[in-house]
């Protein structure tokens, strides 16, 4: 297995001329997707299908006194009803899955509330019926008696000593130590470098500010869906939309206490995920209902279910203080991060704390992070989870320091930029990184050098970091007689990864990308593969494809040697041609040799498995121009340039697509998006009509600029690209608004009403 050893030398192909890597072939799944032939979870049909519907809590915080399902069960057409009572007992057991170790009781209680409901929309029961309408009507006949409790809806309120407790047994943990008293604060983390107190005494300018961000959803277009079916022999199959078929298998196995060997998960095409389709919600529900009814059961969410019943990214309170000398050298930095976890522990405060000062080489740093439960849906990953909240604070404060010192905002970033060998605030040393290159590219870009002086127009910049992950991937390659290969993988294709993975195999074998047929298959048909998340897929699964293709190459060399009756050491392979180097001057193309596999030993199958540790970090620097309407407070994005280090862009179009998509989601987060709650804890804008995401009419073309500083942890130098582009937009836009109107915006979203208040107009 490649990457399992940390001292392993990776054979870098840096600076080589590539035939396939770096080109822009049409994606293999493109035609099916644009013609509507691609099959998504909601499209799935099977004989005898029942339809499931989930009953959700009308209260944000309440004790469940009783659940009576008898009236629902009596409704004609109803075939089964499930509640928490149907789940195996899950008291106090830690399971390693999903986003790491989780308390199994919390995981199960998020599928069906047992003793308490902890957010409006919390699932309480589910019905399977012969059609969706009967299932919906039956849900209304389930009688649930609640004792309504006061909700806690904001992180600082939840941290107060007298705040209502969500979990009577939850106590704060701090690196293995547990507090004595119950609290809504699930954990406290801290990173510290040097002597921050001394660093601040050396500073000649200090800026401290507080920041607040709202609860924001990933906003994927396709709602969650799942169809489950038990065979007569007890094998369970689940067809669903997911970012990771194997993690669905693990979570369902833990929740239902069912062996993973009896669960097959079939990933359908996915209509967006952005981190929100890693946790399971209705997949165990479909399986429970299928078990109870003996029939296949399909459960679909609608948009309100998605907003109210699935994980958003958290609201947060962030306090940042930074100090610098007159020449712009940062002497100390301090951050306090309090993130809402939602109903159960597990906010992304850890990644936020890791990323907040990672672009800079600062000797004296202290970062405190708090994971806090509130009466909102349990948070789920969302594109660089935690990093945008944190960067909104640090990049705004740095901008203010630059302004006070009269230093260009990109220049102050260059003066403090982290590079290979510098130590991050959380401890580890940076490997080879490309932050400086992104700032330099932004500084010399025509956008940054263009005039910007109109009234109510402003320009802002910001940078961001995301660490990326490796984890396990498996790929199998079957060689076809016509010179093509079938590439079998387990990574959900969200952003064009069928193409970017296929291209890495094609490069090794000297064949066109079009000669690779990539398939994303079920959990029974490929080796273990971790989620499409953490910006890992083109990096890790691409690495596995590279290894599988190397395996094929070795085997094909054996076949050529056999054909020519020479030793394998006398066969070389380059540019898709095998040649004999023992004086015979024989040559055969990869394609022609594929046609002679039968006579040289039969089929050739290659495999590759990796668990690479060198994902490398990703950096981005963005420049944005805005115009603020002085009468309405509306912010218009006039021009947007996003520079990012991709390591090596395997398929530049899809790297650009990720950069543009991340920037656009960041723009939405910055300007418009938020969950708006009433006092009872009900989200009052749970539809796309009222939850305002940006459309193409709101945006200019995002100019994506790719910088390539190869990652030494990958054969082609790939770095993950999917997450870091959402980090800079929030502070970059805030800094641009300051440039336009002279007011520092410290609360998200920076919506028209907040702008008008900031300008003193209301």
């Amino acid at each position: 297995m490649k990457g399992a050893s940390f001292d392993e030398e990776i054979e870098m192909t840096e600076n080589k001329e590539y035939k396939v890597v770096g080109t822009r072939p049409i994606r293999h799944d493109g035609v099916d997707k644009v013609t509507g032939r691609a099959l998504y979870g909601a499209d799935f049909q099977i004989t005898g299908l029942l339809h499931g519907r989930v009953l959700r809590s009308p209260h944000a915080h309440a004790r469940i006194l009783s659940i009576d399902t008898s009236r629902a069960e009596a409704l004609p057409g109803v075939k089964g009803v499930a509640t928490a009572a149907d789940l195996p007992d899950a008291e106090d057991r830690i399971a390693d899955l999903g986003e790491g170790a989780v308390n199994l009781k919390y995981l199960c209680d998020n599928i069906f509330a047992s003793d308490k409901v902890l957010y409006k929309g919390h699932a309480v029961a589910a019905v399977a019926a012969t059609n969706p309408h009967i299932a919906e009507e039956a849900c209304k006949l389930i009688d649930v008696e609640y004792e309504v409790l006061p909700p806690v809806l904001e992180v600082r309120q939840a941290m107060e000593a007298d705040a209502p407790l969500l979990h009577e047994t939850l106590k704060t943990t701090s690196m293995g130590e547990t507090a004595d008293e119950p609290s809504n604060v699930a954990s406290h983390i801290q990173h510290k470098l040097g002597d921050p107190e001394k660093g601040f005494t050396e500073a000649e300018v200090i800026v401290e500010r507080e920041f607040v961000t709202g609860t924001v959803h990933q906003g994927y277009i396709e709602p969650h869906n799942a169809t489950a079916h038990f065979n007569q022999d007890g094998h369970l199959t689940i067809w669903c939309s997911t970012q990771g078929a194997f993690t669905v298998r693990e979570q369902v196995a833990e929740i239902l206490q069912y062996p993973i060997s009896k669960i097959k998960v079939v990933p359908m095409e996915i209509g967006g995920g952005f981190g929100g389709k890693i946790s399971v919600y209705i997949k165990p529900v479909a399986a429970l209902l299928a078990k109870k009814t003996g029939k296949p059961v399909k459960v679909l969410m609608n948009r309100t279910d998605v907003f109210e019943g699935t994980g958003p990214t958290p609201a947060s309170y962030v306090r940042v203080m930074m100090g610098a000398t007159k020449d712009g050298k940062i002497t100390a930095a301090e951050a306090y991060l309090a993130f809402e976890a939602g109903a159960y522990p597990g906010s992304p405060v850890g990644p936020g704390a890791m990323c907040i000062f990672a672009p800079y080489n600062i000797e004296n740093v202290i970062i405190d992070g708090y994971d806090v439960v509130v009466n909102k849906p349990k948070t789920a990953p969302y594109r660089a989870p935690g990093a945008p909240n944190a960067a909104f604070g640090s990049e705004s404060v740095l901008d203010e320091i630059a302004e006070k010192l009269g230093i260009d905002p990109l220049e102050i970033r260059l003066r403090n930029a982290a590079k290979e060998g510098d130590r991050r605030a959380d401890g580890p040393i940076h490997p080879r990184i490309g932050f400086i290159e992104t700032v330099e590219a932004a500084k010399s870009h025509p956008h940054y050098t263009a005039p910007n002086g109109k009234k109510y127009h402003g320009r802002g910049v910001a940078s961001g970091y995301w660490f990326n992950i490796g984890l396990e991937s498996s790929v199998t390659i079957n060689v076809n007689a016509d010179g093509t290969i079938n590439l079998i993988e387990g990574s959900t294709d969200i952003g064009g990864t069928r193409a970017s993975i296929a291209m890495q195999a094609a490069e090794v074998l000297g064949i066109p990308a079009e000669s690779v047929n990539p398939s994303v298959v079920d959990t029974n048909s490929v080796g273990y593969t971790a989620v499409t998340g953490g910006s890992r897929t083109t990096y890790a699964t691409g690495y596995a494809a590279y290894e599988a293709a190397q395996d094929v190459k070795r085997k094909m060399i054996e076949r050529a040697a056999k054909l020519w009756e020479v030793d394998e050491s006398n066969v070389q392979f380059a540019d898709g041609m095998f040649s004999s180097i023992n004086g015979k001057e024989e040559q055969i193309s990869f394609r022609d040799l594929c046609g002679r596999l039968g006579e040289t030993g039969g089929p050739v199958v290659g495999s590759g498995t990796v668990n690479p540790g060198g994902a490398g970090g990703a950096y981005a620097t963005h420049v944005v121009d805005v115009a603020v309407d002085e009468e309405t407070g509306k912010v218009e994005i006039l021009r947007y340039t996003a520079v990012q280090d991709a390591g090596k862009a395997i398929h530049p179009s899809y790297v650009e697509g990720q950069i543009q998509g991340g920037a656009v989601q960041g723009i939405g987060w910055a300007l418009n998006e938020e969950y708006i709650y009433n006092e009872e804890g009900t989200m009052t804008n749970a539809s796309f009509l009222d939850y305002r995401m940006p459309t193409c009419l709101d945006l200019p073309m995002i100019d994506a600029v790719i910088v390539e500083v190869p990652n030494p942890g990958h054969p082609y130098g790939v770095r993950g690209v999917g997450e870091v582009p959402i980090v800079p937009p929030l502070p970059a836009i805030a800094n641009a608004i300051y440039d336009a109107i002279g007011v520092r915006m410290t609360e998200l979203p920076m919506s028209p009403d907040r702008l008008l208040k900031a300008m003193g107009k209301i």
Partner: protein
Amino acid sequence: MPTVVIPPLMRNLTSGEANITLPGTTIREVIDNLESRHPGMKERLCQEGRLKPGIAIYVNGLLTRGSLLERVDADAEIHFLPAIGGGVSEPSY
């Protein structure tokens, strides 16, 4: 010998010492030796013979799978950090 960087919230067990060099060829040996020198460390890091949930191990800047059997070089730098989420899935094969 490997160097362990002690997390700030655990330095109450090391009298404030941040970097500790001690022998060990695996993470388990390093932790055992750390425990001998600073009692209480093992209880904070391990549970039932495995790394405690919520804690991650970095060796020479690279995130490991958290196995106590992980081998470490003589000049390795070891960090115990809060485990992070962010869409990271833990496997069961």
